[in-house]
Each structure stands twice: as structure tokens, then as C-alpha cells.
């Protein structure tokens, strides 16, 4: 009786083993990718909202400040979704007949909420707090992206834990002066756009007042700070110093330090904003409890 499997079967079997391994790996990689894909995270997806509200139009076009609607972002864990009344403040006067705004008027007349769909949705076991982030120098755009360029709102980032930890492990890379929190167009300092910052000499000042920063050279080549420049040390003396050294300088002589690199600025702000250490910030109870 002839062999059922001829010699070529050996090769097939080996190939089969290899293929099985590859398939398992591929399946693993696929699942891993799937888990990080926009299909799961909804990153970049525009939800089907009851009203096609355009942040681009209201922020960039009309120049509304973020807090006009998101009123509690500095004081509470929750930034706040505006009540219908906030919409009606203007839309009782303008675009009163626009078909797009019908749900707003319906809400106003019936007293039923506008059923928005949450775009930035964290799992329920995550306890996120807006106020501490905006108070400590994390701008809106760092997490939400250029909202002023979003005709329809979407999540710029995955909001997955690895993304959170990426910053909590090294907050310096996203810190900015608290005066620039709501500045959508803020750019990290570079040689072309340097930033000058000076520490406040009052030790117990609130975070927002502990550092003054400007994008205009305060040393005198025009700009807002020129009349004060004579009182300060020349910025050249401070260039090249790290944030810690700058912080250790006597506060009695407030001096603007020039930053042309985000990490330098970040480390400077970490010291003056009293940002907790990565060890503290990555501790589980910070977000889970």
C-alpha cells in the first residue's frame, strides 16, 4: 500500500507550523492594532450630533473664548457643556430662523436637553480633573487638538491610558505658560519663536501668577515689556541656564529668561508651577479609585 503522505508532506507540515505561528502573531498584531484603531478609540471620528456645531466658526471665526461655554474648566473636574441658554444668548437675536438651529429652539421652548454625543469619553473608572490641568499649564489644545480648526468636533487623541501616561511620565514636553492655556495657536518655543519667562518673587502666589511669560522680547526691541527692561538683567546672561538654575536665582531680581526649546521651558515651568514628580503623577490613585 502506498504511503498516504509522500515526502513533500514534510515540507507542507513544516510550512504549516510556521504559518500557524505567523497567523497567531498576525492575529495578535491585528487585535493590538484594532484596539488602538479609531474604530475602537473613535479618534478622529465625527459623531452624528443633533446640531452640526462648528467650533471653527465660533472660536476662530467669531473669537469666542473657550470659557464662554465651558465655564467650569478652571474650577471643577468637569469643564461643562453649555446650557441651551448659552446658545440662545446670541441665537435669540441672530440666525433666528436657521433650520440648523431648530433643535436649539426646540430645547429652549420644550425644556428638553439637546442630546449631544460625548466625543471625549473616558471609561467610568477613570477620574479626570480639568481644573488641575489648566491650572498647571496644560493647554486645551494639548489634549483636544486645534479645536478652532474643527468644523465638526472630533477627538484628536486616543485618550487611551498609554497616551495619558506619555505626558504624566514627562509633563515638561506639554507645559506652557498658564496665560496661554486657551491660546489654540500656541506653538512650542523655538529659535524662531522664543519665549521669555520670569518667575514671580512671591513664593505663595497662585500658580497662574507664579510666572510671567511673553513672546515679545522684553529686553527692549519694542514690545510691551520694554519700559521695564532696564530693571532686568540682560537675557543673554540667562541663556543656556536650565530651569532649575534659573529657579534658584534670587527672586529679588526678576529676570526674564529666554527659552527657545520646549523642554527647557517645560522644566522651568515644572519648578515654578510645582508640578508633581512623574513618580507621583503615574501613581494609580491619581486617576483610579
Amino acid at each position: 500500500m502506498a504511503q498516504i503522505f509522500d515526502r513533500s508532506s514534510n515540507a507542507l507540515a513544516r510550512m504549516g507550523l510556521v504559518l500557524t505561528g505567523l497567523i497567531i502573531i498576525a492575529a495578535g498584531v491585528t487585535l493590538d492594532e484594532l484596539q488602538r484603531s479609531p474604530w475602537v478609540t473613535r479618534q478622529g471620528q465625527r459623531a452624528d450630533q443633533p446640531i452640526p456645531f462648528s467650533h471653527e466658526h465660533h472660536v476662530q471665526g467669531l473669537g469666542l473664548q473657550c470659557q464662554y461655554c465651558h465655564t467650569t474648566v478652571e474650577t471643577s473636574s468637569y469643564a461643562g457643556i453649555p446650557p441651551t441658554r448659552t446658545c440662545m444668548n446670541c441665537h435669540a437675536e441672530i440666525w433666528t430662523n436657521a433650520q440648523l438651529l431648530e433643535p436649539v429652539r426646540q430645547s429652549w421652548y420644550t425644556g428638553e436637553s439637546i442630546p449631544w454625543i460625548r466625543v471625549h469619553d473616558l471609561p467610568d473608572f477613570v477620574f479626570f480633573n480639568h481644573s488641575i490641568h489648566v491650572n498647571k499649564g496644560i493647554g486645551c489644545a494639548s489634549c483636544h487638538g486645534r479645536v478652532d480648526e474643527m468644523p465638526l468636533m472630533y477627538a484628536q487623541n486616543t485618550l487611551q491610558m498609554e497616551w495619558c501616561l506619555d505626558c504624566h511620565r514627562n509633563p515638561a514636553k506639554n507645559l506652557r505658560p498658564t496665560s496661554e492655556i486657551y491660546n489654540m495657536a500656541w506653538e512650542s518655543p523655538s529659535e524662531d519663536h522664543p519665549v521669555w519667562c520670569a518667575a514671580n518673587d512671591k513664593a505663595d502666589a497662585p500658580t497662574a501668577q507664579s510666572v510671567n511669560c511673553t513672546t515679545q522680547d522684553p529686553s527692549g526691541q519694542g514690545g510691551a515689556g520694554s519700559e521695564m527692561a532696564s530693571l532686568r538683567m540682560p537675557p543673554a546672561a540667562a541663556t543656556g541656564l536650565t530651569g532649575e538654575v534659573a529657579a534658584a536665582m534670587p527672586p529679588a531680581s526678576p529676570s526674564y529668561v529666554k527659552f527657545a526649546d520646549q523642554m527647557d521651558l517645560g522644566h522651568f515651568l515644572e519648578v515654578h508651577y510645582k508640578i508633581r514628580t512623574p513618580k507621583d503623577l503615574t501613581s494609580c490613585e491619581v486617576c483610579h479609585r
Partner: protein
Amino acid sequence: MSREMRGNGSETAMRLAQEHPSGAKARELPTAESARADSCPDTKPASDGSCSPSLQKQDLHPAAFAQDDSAVLKNEPMTLEAVRKELKGVKGKRYWRSLDELANTPEFQAAVEREFPSAAQEWIDPVSRRGFLKLMGASMALAGLAGCTKMPDEPIYPYIKAPEDLILGKPMYFATAHPFTTGAVPLLVKSDEFRPIKVDGNPEHAYNNGSSDPYTQGTLLDLYDPDRAKHVTYRGESREWAEFAEAFQNKVASTKDGTGVYFLSAAITSPTLARQWSEAQKAYPKAKLVQYEPALAGTFLEKGVNVQYDLSQADVIVSLDAEFLSSASYPGFHKLVRDYAARRKQPENGMNRLYTVESSTTTTGMKAEHRLGLRASEIPAFAAALAQAVGVGGVNAPAYAWTPEQQKFLAALAADLKASAGKSAVIPGLYQHESVAALAMAINNALGNLGKTVFSSSEPAIPVPSDQLGDFKSLVADLNAGKVDWLVILNANPIYDAPADLNFADAFNKANIVVHLGSHYDETSQQSHWHIPAAHYLESWSDARAYDGTVSVVQPMIDPLYGGHTAHHILQALLSEPMLSPYDAVRETWKSTIKGDFEAGWRKALHDGWIADTVAAGPPKGSAGGAFNGAIPTPTPKDSVEIIFRPDPNVYDGRWANVGWLQELPKPVVSLSWDNAALVSGATLSQWNLEEEDIVEITVGNGRVKAPVIVAPGHPDNSVTVYLGYGREVGRVAGGAGFNSYLVRNTWAPFYATGAVRKVEGKWGVAVTKSHYQDKRPPSLLGQGQGDNSLEGDEALGPRAIVRYATLDEFKANPNFAHEGYTKDTPPYDDSLFPNWPYNEANAWAMSIDMNSCTGCNACIVSCYAENNIAVVGKQQVRIGRCMQWLRIDAYFEGDLAAPRAHFQPMACQHCENAPCEQVCPVGATIHTPEGLNMMIYNRCVGTRYCSNNCPYKVRRFNFLLYSDYETESLKLMRNPDVSVRSRGVMEKCSYCVQRIQEAKIRADQENRTIRDGEIVTACQQACPAKVITFGNMNDKDSRVSKLRAQQRSYQVIADINTRPRTTYVAEVLNPNQELEQTPVEHA
């Protein structure tokens, strides 16, 4: 664990005991009975089906137990008699927690060998194992996918117009008061999006200083109780409030003078309601008001007594059956406990001494330096003898054969009182004969305490004093005579709790129309014509006086969830302005009291939580040195059986029977949850030839009721304590729990009566938690123990010394007593296999617990329930050791079974720096934070339970089943939004209220400052009336917790295994009387 099998001593019985856990049903008699009959190889089963335990026990020499472990290993049982003999032989300190432990029964050994008692049962039963595997299969399949599933879209519903003051995500706090029968508890309620989510005492109020009690904490769940009545009904059909109001007004108006209109109300606590009633009485002089409060009727409080004690000035305190340290059922509880505890925090500066004479077993007795257990009827005679001994004139003490021990106690007490004249306080029991209160006042008067430690407020907490039982009797007579046309019942439940001898249920039907205002559709609603849902105090406007007389305005925290109304609405309907709201009525009452601009004063009163200058305290009336003239009842014969009725420490008179938190709360001393029981002494149990959990029939007068019997250590012999408030017929939580002791309670003896007790067939499985959370320790461990040690028993006694205390003299001689003589104290810092983590950089959270002032009142546990969204598991799960409370209060009894002293030790996660749980978690679900907290990361936990196995303190709780209620809508409103609701298969434990720590950190960081000492208050700390718990940063050397830790009395529990707990305990110091030093007294 199974308690049915005690005393059987056979292998079969043991196995059966495990396979048929008593957990299945409360009264699962057939199985237990047959097992018992089969398993009595040596002795003839007694006629009741049990192996009479005393038969086996007689010939067993108790000494054998003390020395010979082999007897233990043979699973020999031990009688109470033997236990007592054993205890008698022991010199020095010997602690125990339960009779099982003392007797070292096989069940007890089996229980300590298992992490969770009887948890294994589900695996032995093939059916449930199959079920489990099926479930496991399903969850395994889901486990892979669960991570990849998309979260569903979550909607956001914004406001139309946002409320002006609301910041979403930030709680607000409003002052109000809990109008309780023994005096209002001033409150500060945490409100999230206008939903009350935590009820706590008002920290600025002089009466309670921010403390609360289990009842008050439990009212939050009562508000959100899904069983609350939701509709106005008339003969079972849904109606509108307006229809009732019209019918009611027309009826009353048609009578002209109110003839035939009767109001039966719970004790009125609101001055506004009292005013409304007096105005209604003027308009309708023939209308009648009867107040009936089952736990108050027949006490001195109903008469409007308002005696206050300032224990901060008292060196010697005597309780004559007054459970003033035990629960808010004693008027003035919060302040009494605070002042009592304040005098025990620094023994070096002097401390008080407490004597308790009591007829039941309470924490007040257990905390006393000297305790005398007397039958209830003996206490008036004892009080009279004491009055005579301290020189009160005119006292004619009944002749009674006091034992030498009692005489000695009396003499020493009288001498001590006389020595502390002007610096002592004698406190009478609320549930005692009226002569005791009068005698106590006379003694205080004779000692010159009036105006020094004893005061009286100008305003009683009960604004309408009355003879409640007498009024109730005449109401029943009028009902039977057909005089009652309309009976309006306000917040009372008389069908359930009326005295049995009145036959109220029969009389009730003779009224033409019965209206019932009640929070629940209860026993009375079911038989009434009209039912009106009552608004909760957190939903309505009212007012009330704290026991010190200060008026608090009760303001609503939320709109009535079910459109409820209050008694204010009903009485106002009779007045000239029938539509006046309770809000306006309350304002009307205080118009003249609030000085200056009324609106400003009113707003200030609402903000502060009290109306200023509404009370004045002064010395009580009574001439100095005045003689006593009153009758003193003679004690009943010593062999007569006394039945003592007390409101339940958890559910009071039954009003909170449907509050799961309170039902599951282990009662102080006996650790019984979900039931009431007939509490007897160990000697009485033996004498009556009973075992624990046997069912007895209690007969008083014509009433009889069946009850399970359990032992309360130190209970006086020949008397039985039964708690009121159980045996309810309605409510998903209340229904079926316990027995209704109102069935044997009569108007002629509301708080103690002579009765009879008879054993009946069967066993009644009760859930007693003190046998849980004990740990098996092998003999090799550090050379300790004999292999059958429980955490509590030998270790509390031995060098480990879980409980450490000294007398005041010992303490003065050796302030370092808590660390000397204990060979196993904290090892050196470097003595660890694991690298040391430096905790010296930032905050290091720590807790200090003062064992000297803890009175075991349980307020902390209920507060923890509310703060941390802890689930209620139900009686059967409690019976198998699955209670989820993060905090428990261990009671270690010491000394003679008949007269023990107890040490209360609140025990929660110790937040060990070297945490044994963390080292065994395979998934890193329990880890340390840089600030030294031992954290649970719920979403990492896979439920191996290794951590709990490895925890030496047994403080971890596992969600064996889906205990949290994710379905019931009303409960969702109650949850603390800052704490995850845990699902099945997740371990949880005390987190030091990490959500509060985080909140404080964020606030401090925003303000660029460090956290202030005292800024973080844990939920347990907040509730505690004795201020036992202190929390703070131990790296800050000036913090209160650092100073407490630095005290010499401060020690750590089981520190010898190098866990380095962050929770430390301050060792107790007792202040015994030299003359009675031999305490607890050795009994025959």
C-alpha cells in the same frame, strides 16, 4: 460557619455542616434535624432532636483543654460550664471574641482554617460547580473580546438654564437637621448636583461638633429606598393629593368643633408642628391628638424632660441602665460621648471613671471600669440603695437580698461618688422605671452636681409633652366606643408597633375613615383607607430642636422624589390659611425669635444650621438637698424571667428596617446582623438547656413570639433582651428579618416585663460576624501559638498583644507599657527582604485610632458605606463571611464570661508599608502609592484572592457575586460619584478615603500650597462622636497624627511580622477603683 452542629462532635456532622450550610434558609429544619439525629453516636438525642450538649460535657475535664491539644484535635466539644472553668483558671489577661472561640469548637477550628468561612460549599455541590464552570466558560470567552469592544455612545444632557450656583463636579454643602425622636441631629449634607449623597454632622454646631450616629447615617439610604411609597391611594386606587385635601378639609369643617377627628402621630419633634397643632386645637377644640412613639412611650423623655450632663467636668460617671455611650436612642448621645471621650485622651492629665449598672449587655457597660449586671427590676432598688448610701433623704429602699459582690460594688460606688461630690454625674436609664430618673436626680442633687455637671435646658426636645401610653389607651377606648370618625395617622405604624394588649388592629377597623401618612406602604397603610406618601426630612421644610434645645431649621436637599407631603401640610389644612406651605409655616414660627432683619437672620440660620439664642441652659429645678418622695418598685423574685425590650441599635423601632446598611451592620457586642434575637447570658443558656440558635417561644401576658437565642456576654442571668423593630412584613430588605417583639410588649410593661421562655423545635440560623475574619496560624510561625490560634484569641493575649492596656496606676508607673513585655514589637527598619521605599519626600498618610475612647457605636461603619459605595450582600452572604464592610469593630472580651470587659478595636486596612497583599498579587492590582497608600486598582483585579489570603489583618473584601446594585434607579442618585462601584470578581478594601485625599491635593495644588493638617477627614473620622480617629501626614512633625504616633502608648497591631502599618492604635488606660480592683469580678 455552621452553628447548628455545635456539640455533636462527629465527623459526619462536620461534613454535613459544610455541605448543608445554614446559609440556605433561615429555618431549614429538616436537614439540620436529620443530621443531628444521625450524628449522636454516644448520646441519645434529646427529645428536641439535638444531642443534649451538657451530657457530653459533664465528664470532660476542662483542664484537659488548657494543656492537652489532642483533646481539641479530636473535635471534642466543650460546654459553657467547661469554658467558664477554663477561664477561671487563667491568670492575667485572656481575650476572646466569641463562645466558639472560647470553647475552641471544631467549627471554630474549621472556620479559621478557611479564608472565607464556608466559601468552599459551592464547589462541593456538583450542581453549582457545573453552573460555575458554565459561567466561567462564558466569561473566559468574553474576557478576550471585552478588551476590544467599543464603548457605546454616551449622551450628554446639558441644562436648559443652568442653576446659578451650581458647578458641576463640585459638591455643595447645606446645613439641615435630622429630626430624631431623642433630639435632632444637626447636619451638614453633601450635595452633588442637588442630590444629597452624604449626611454628616454639622461641624460648627455646639451640640454634636460634626459627629453623627448610625441612624443618622442610615437616613440617606432611607431617602433613596426604592420601596418608598410613591402614590396617594384611596382604598388601593391612585388618587391626587388635592382630592384628599378637599375630602379632609370638608370633613373637618363639617364637624364644626372637630368631634370625631383623631390624630395619631409619631412624637412631634417640630416646634412648628406643635404650633400648628395648638392652633388647630383652638379652631377644633374637640379634635384629639395622640402621640405614640414606641421607643419613647413610657419614658421620662415623653414628659419633656431635658436634663443635660456635662461629662467634661465629671470625674466619676454612673450609668443606671443608661446606654448613653451606645446609641443615639439615648438623648444627648453625641455630646455625652464626646465629653466622655475627651476625658480619656490624655490619662496623664487625669481621666474619668465610669460605673455601669445595667440590665442588658451594651457597649456602655463594656466600656465601664466597673460594670454590674442586674436584672431590670433590680435596678430601681439598687438606685434607691445607692441614694440612701450617698445620703439622699426620704428614700425608702426596698429590702432585697443583694449578693456580697453587689454589696461591695454598691459600697465602693457610693464612697467614690461621695469623694467626687460636685464632680460626678449619675445618669438614669431611659428605659427604666420612672423612679430611677428621680433617684438619679436626687443623688446628683445630694452630691451637689446640679449646675456643675447636671444642667437643664430651657426648652425640651419634645415640644408637646404627653402621656403617650395613656393617650393611646384612651384612643383605643374611643375607637371601640365608635367615637372615632376620622383617624389620621401621621408617620406612625401602629398596626405593627402598637402594644399587644391593646388589640389595636381590631379597634382600628372601627374608625370610619383612616388616613395614613407614611414614608412606606407599610402594615398600617395596607389597612388604611387613604395612604399619603410622606416626604423624607431631606425633602421637606420643618424644624427641630437638638437635645440641648437649639433650634435647627430642616431644609430640603432635593424635591420630593415621589411628591410626598408632611404632617405640616395636613395640620395646616385645618387652619385659616390651608395652603400655606411648610416653608412659610416654619418662617412664621420663628418670626418673633429671629432678631433684627428677619430675612438676614433667616438666611444666617439656614446657612449656619441653627437659630441663635433659642435656648438657655441652667441648673435644673429642684431644691438643693431636697428629699426624695416617690414609690420604688420591689424587684421581682430572682428566679422569675424578665424580658427586656430595647429599640434596636441598628433599625431603632423598625423605621429603618428597610435600610440595608443598618440591617447588615453587626450590632455592638453581639455582632449580630440581619436579625434580632433573644439575648441571654451563658449561664442562663446552660440552665435552660439551650444552645445558641435554638428557637424559644417568649410569652408575656397573652402575647407570644418565637425567637432565636444567642449569648450576650455579661448579660444578667434569668433575663432576656429582645430588640424591637424586626419582623416587618413589608419591604424588600425588612421583610422576613427577625421576629416582631412588639407582639409580646404591653402597655403595662413597655421596657421590661416578667415572662416565660420555652424551647420549641428547630434552629434559626443567624448571621453573627464575629466568627469571621480570623486567621489560621501555623505553630511554626515565629514560634508562636499551638497551631490552633485565631488572630484574636491567643494573639490578643500573647506577646503579639493586639489589644494593649494598663490601669492608670500602671501607666503612671510605666508610661511605656505598650511596648514592654511584648517580645514581638516592630523589627528594625532594615529587617526586610524587600528594598525599603523612602517615604520621607512628600506626604505620608497615616491614621491613629484611640482605643481608649472608642465606644463601638458603629457610626464609622455606616459612614463608610455611604462614602465608598459599599454593597449590601444580604443575610445568607453574611453568614458565609462575605460581608463587604471595609471597616469593622472587633470586640475583644476579657475575663469572666458572666462579667467580661470588652475592648473595641476598629479594624480596617492598615496600609502597611511592607504590605503582604502586594507581594502576592499576580497582576499588580494592589500597589503602593508614593505617599504610602495601599491602593486597589479595580480594573486590574482578576480576583485571585491571594491578597486576602496573605493579609494578616483580614480586612480585604471580595465581590464573590454581583453585590452592587446597578439596576435600581433611585440608588443611582445616592452613589458617591468619586468612587467606582465595584462589580463581581473584584477585591476591595479601605482606601483611607483616597478620593478625599485626591480632592484635597488638587485643591492645594491649585492654590500652590501644601495640604493643611486636618484638611483631609476620612468618612469614619467625620462620623465618630468620640473623635477616635485621626488622619494626617506623618511626615509633618506638627500634625496631630504625628503627635499621636509619637505618644508612648501608640502601638501597631501585629507589627512583629514587619508589615509596618500606617494605622497605629493608642493603647487603652483604665481607671479602676482600688476597692474594686479585682475586676472583672470573678463569678462562681
